[in-house]
């Protein structure tokens, strides 16, 4: 996109309050990331050894799932702006199903860890693993429920070019969930 916008024509999508929440949430996660790298630097061997117990395929596939979900949600917002009202609902449903797929895979992963006797009490690495992915997982559950609710409203024709504010706000939250995972995944599963 090569166009240059003046400050007057620039627009924040959705509600400003949602952006403040998203910014605060991202700052909180930023501090979690900082805390993790500081603690890791004190005992790199333990963190690298513990990381080998993680299956990075789960993390990688879940990244692809969340990216695809975000893409569907972007397209849903664009569809609303183009007054393609039915498309909005279908795209939000696709996004929500991706969120559900992430949840299923996460439960499989947690179950696998717990069945191997790994918990947040195992060591510092796994404490961070369970707390960081757990808080993020909670965000995914909230976001998935939100997408299903938005989808239901979209089926009733709520979202179109003159009413996109809350659809954009929901999309903003969902993209934050996506981008936090983009950092969490390499931090926990790949960095060594």
């Amino acid at each position, binding site marked *: *996109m090569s166009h240059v*916008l003046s*400050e007057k024509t*620039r*627009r*924040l*999508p959705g509600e400003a309050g949602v*952006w403040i929440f998203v*910014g605060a949430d*991202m*700052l909180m996660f*930023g501090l979690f*990331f*900082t805390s993790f*790298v*500081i603690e*890791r*630097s004190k005992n*790199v061997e333990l963190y690298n050894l513990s990381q080998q117990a993680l299956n*990075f*395929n789960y*993390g*990688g596939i879940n*990244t*692809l799932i969340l*990216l*695809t979900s*975000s*893409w569907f*949600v*972007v*397209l849903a917002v*664009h*569809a609303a702006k*183009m007054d*393609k009202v039915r*498309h909005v609902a279908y795209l939000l449903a696709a996004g929500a199903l991706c969120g559900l797929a992430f949840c299923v895979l996460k439960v499989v992963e947690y179950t696998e860890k717990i069945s191997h006797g790994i918990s947040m009490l195992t060591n510092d690495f796994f404490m961070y693993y369970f707390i960081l992915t757990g808080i993020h997982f909670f965000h995914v559950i909230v976001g998935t429920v939100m997408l299903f609710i938005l989808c239901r409203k979209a089926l009733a024709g709520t979202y179109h070019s003159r009413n996109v504010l809350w659809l*954009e706000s929901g*999309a*903003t939250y969902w*993209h*934050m969930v*996506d*981008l936090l995972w*983009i*950092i969490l*995944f*390499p*931090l926990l599963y*790949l*960095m*060594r």
Partner: protein
Amino acid sequence: MGLWLGTPTLVWAVLMLATCASTWWLKSGAATSMLATAAILVIAAVKVRLVIIHFMELGDAPLKWRIFFELWVIVFSGVILAGFWLSAH
């Protein structure tokens, strides 16, 4: 351009390819471990920026908002990279 053929789809394709490269190519020893991790972290920062600019549409948002989120990427990616580099030495 229609709904499916546009910048979001192009950005999504780049994000998917970058994820596959990080997860199943760089991780599996295509480069030395330290270089591979540094590349993986830089790729993650670029991916986050793509999401912020194109998916969250901050590219067209008032500058104060865009600057805040762009700074978030720079600061915390920098912290993670610095933490990784320091712990490797």
